[in-house]
């Protein structure tokens, strides 16, 4: 009896130890990779973003929460594609947008109720306008499908309103966009960010500073500089190293203030 009990205890101890160690390895690796990703985002540095992508890709080897790793890989791809947009490199936009969409498909096949995946899909689908405007009809349909799914899965996801706000911000008023319509979306996003109590460090937490940044840009466009300054400052409290806030938004503010 003693021997049997001993064997069971031995197995439980060993098994638990292995599982906990794997979880711990995964969490540590993801948290580290997220930190490097944030650094790359803050600096708007494509080289660092490519490195960050590689780091996430290596985490796939742990074969743990692959859906989440694929999400982060797609997020890196989205950011690299955005760099391509700024550099007017359509090949890069196309290549990484398509790769991001493929990764999200893998992610959602494994876990189809992760709202952030659909939010990111919305962003990537918007990217397609950059290089295949002639498929406007199907892009709009794909964006709508992703949007409906994201909202249905988590109506309180702040990144949903952030992404929708960004798309509205860059859409001309004649086509149903503009800063007036985008502003309440950023405000909603900020409100929802305030309600988040994220205890799982491996899950996505990006966007709060960007929501303030875009809200500031809306105010700047509307000529409301004090409100813009407030939004910008709040964003910097959340993320003092954001070059989006310290560079792009600040520059727009300064130009308007002249």
């Amino acid at each position, binding site marked *: 009896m*003693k021997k049997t*009990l*001993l064997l069971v*205890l*031995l197995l439980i*101890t*060993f098994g638990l*130890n292995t599982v906990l160690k794997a979880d711990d*390895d995964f969490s540590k*690796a993801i948290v580290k990779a997220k930190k490097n990703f944030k650094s790359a985002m803050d600096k708007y540095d494509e*080289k660092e973003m*490519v*490195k960050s*992508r*590689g*780091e996430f*890709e*290596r*985490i*796939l*080897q*742990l074969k743990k929460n692959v859906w989440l790793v694929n999400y982060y890989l797609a997020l890196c*791809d989205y950011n*690299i594609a955005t760099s391509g947009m700024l550099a007017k490199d*359509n090949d890069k936009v*196309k*290549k*990484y947008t398509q*790769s991001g969409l493929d990764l999200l498909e893998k992610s959602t096949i494994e876990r189809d109720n992760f709202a952030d995946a659909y939010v990111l899909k919305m962003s990537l689908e918007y990217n397609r306008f*950059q*290089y*295949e*405007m*002639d*498929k*406007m*009809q*199907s892009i*709009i*349909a*794909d964006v*709508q*499908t992703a949007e409906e799914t994201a909202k249905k899965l988590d109506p309180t996801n702040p990144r949903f309103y952030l992404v929708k706000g960004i798309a509205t911000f860059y859409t*001309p008023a*004649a*086509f*149903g966009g503009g800063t007036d319509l985008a502003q309440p979306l950023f405000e909603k996003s900020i409100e929802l960010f305030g309600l988040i109590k994220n205890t799982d460090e491996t899950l996505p937490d990006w966007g709060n500073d960007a929501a303030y940044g875009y809200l500031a840009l809306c105010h700047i466009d509307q000529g409301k500089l004090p409100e813009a300054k407030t939004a910008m400052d709040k964003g910097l409290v959340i993320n003092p190293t954001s070059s989006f806030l310290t560079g792009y938004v600040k520059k727009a503010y300064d130009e308007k203030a002249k």
Partner: protein
Amino acid sequence: MKYLFTLLLLIILCTKTFAADSTAVSIIKISGTIKGEDNKPVNGANLVLEGTIDGATSDEKGVFEFETEKTGTYKLIVTAVDYSTHTQEVNLEAGLNITLDIKLKKNITTTEQILVTASSFTSGENSKVTLTPLEIVRIPGANADLYRALTTFPGSNQVNEGSRITVRGGDPDEVITILDQATLYNPFIFDDSYNTSSFSTVNPWSLKGINFTSGGFSAKYGNALSAVLDLRSYDMPTTTGMFAVVGVGSAGLSGVYLSKNSKFGGTFSLSQSYLKPFFDLNGIAADYSKVPEANGIGGTLAYKFGTTGNMKLYANYSGDKIGIRNASPSYDGFFNSQSDNYFANYKISFAPSPASILSASTSLSLYNRKLNYGVLDTRTKDYYGKGRVDYTQPISQKTNLNAGVEYEYLENQVSGTVPAFSYNLRPNALAYNIDSSANSGRIGAFVETEMRLTDKFFAITGFRSDYHTLSKKISFDPRLSMGYEIAQFNVIRAAVGMYHQYATPQNYLRANNDDLVAEEAIHYILGYEFNVAGDIVFRVEGYYKDYKNLVAQDPNDFKYKSTGSGSAKGIDVFLKYKWQNKFTGWISYAYSDSKRKQLDATTQVPSDYDITHNMSFTGSYNVTDAINVGITYRLSTGKPYTPVTSSIFDPVQNVYAPIYAERNSDRFPTYTQVDARFQYITSLFHKFCVVFVAFNNIFDQKNLYQYNYNFDYTSKTEVPSLNKRIVYFGIGLQL
């Protein structure tokens, strides 16, 4: 109990010891470069030792470096966007650093363009498509008509500036249109009416995919000698909304609905012509008994079932009415035509296993037409029915198997009076009363394999067989299509195959039993294409077609027999350039030499649609995100026609009878036309709105498609196309 604690302590210590052991080895450095097959460095490639997170990412020079504490044999995995995964074993020994030079191969999915078969122009979601729905509606002069848009591609020509097309010198009836497996037998309004351009009833916006193949097509398609236009509509609407278009000559309303759970959807479309304001604006080019009319109504109902199933019902009606004056040598009066066209198709598809697809459909068509011109007064009813099943199954990672079977039923009824002599059309001329009916059935089956033999080489081998109830004969069609990627973006394609098409039931009425076998053509095609993601496309293709068993009239008994023959050869050249989202343009040139001994021709003469040179340029430029302008220029050799050389007086009929020269021994003058289109996107009542203005035949070129002779055929007058310079404008609004 003491024993138990001792052991547990031992276990914990062992675990710690193992952990300590694994960190006690020395560090090994792994470095090197990663390049593509073109020897250029690959930036952002990721390397990792399998089962670990030890690895690195290559920089812009393709250089990488990382350290590991692992020892032993590991698999090194290298991945990069657009490249195939590379793996190799590395032996990690303490104290020994490793240097590697790795070459990556382009991912197989980036070479999808080689899967496009010869002579194909495609549209859809594939990034290598040559034509998008947006480009179709923007082609100046095409009036948002799919068929007219296709004539800006090499190898195809319009018939009388209408929607019917001819391909590589073939007859318009040798081009079949497939929509969701069903054959569209007559998708036109104002079809075959005197000096009137026809229009297609197919809405390009409803199409998910378009594949136009001007030769060498797959064994999936039977009973077609020249070309196939295969259309796929959306299985399910992607959104809910309505759109209205109002122009100076017609108006349309369309809508789509998608249920909240995306399981059920429906579409509808309505169209109505009202040409009076159009004539007021542009003038009336002909003498009409009344303003021509056309209208249409159609829609779909779709339902998704299970995880892969979809069923769809599509129904459509179109009708037209026209009375246009025609002064023929024997009769000067109105050519009156009225037609009604009904079509319905029910299609169901699902995946019986994860990678296979089964589709089945059944369709019915009814085409009613009344024709009246002088003594000619007929009622025609054509019934068409078709059932088809297709199955696709991957049989290995690189091979797909397609198979299918179809049955087609045609019935043609004609009643009324027809002139006894074609040269006397007076209302009181000698005529026959006819009341005939003929029908035929055809059953066909095919099987084909799509094989990717290597990353760069594919082949499609197919075979089909058909049996026809009137000819009582079976045809056998082996077909082969190949593509080889000689370098990135550069593909060589070839196709060879046998094609059969049965004569219409009406032709069998003019033949002795079993005298008509299927008309036969053998296609030989060789081409080269340079294609960079559909943005830059250059294609050159040569072809040769050998015809036999064409329907020809026996000069002795005037019966139809399968004694005709012919050939067609030519070269098609196509260049397309797309510059960002700003400019899209293409130039097409086709040289063709098509000769046939067919119908009343006694020797091989130029075929009815033998256009020696045909060139077109189409360009579309986005001035801003909201403003688009486009222009199309077309130039082609005149169409062949059979001139009248003299006439003799027929005292019984009291009318002159023409004496014709050899069939198609003369040509109309060179055809040329320039069209332009302007489009402005804006918002109205906060809704999407598009305003368009089209200028057709800007230089008012008088293109000829016919001569009218006087009563004794001693003089002829030109009958220019009715498509003189016109302005057309309208507005589309999202509702």
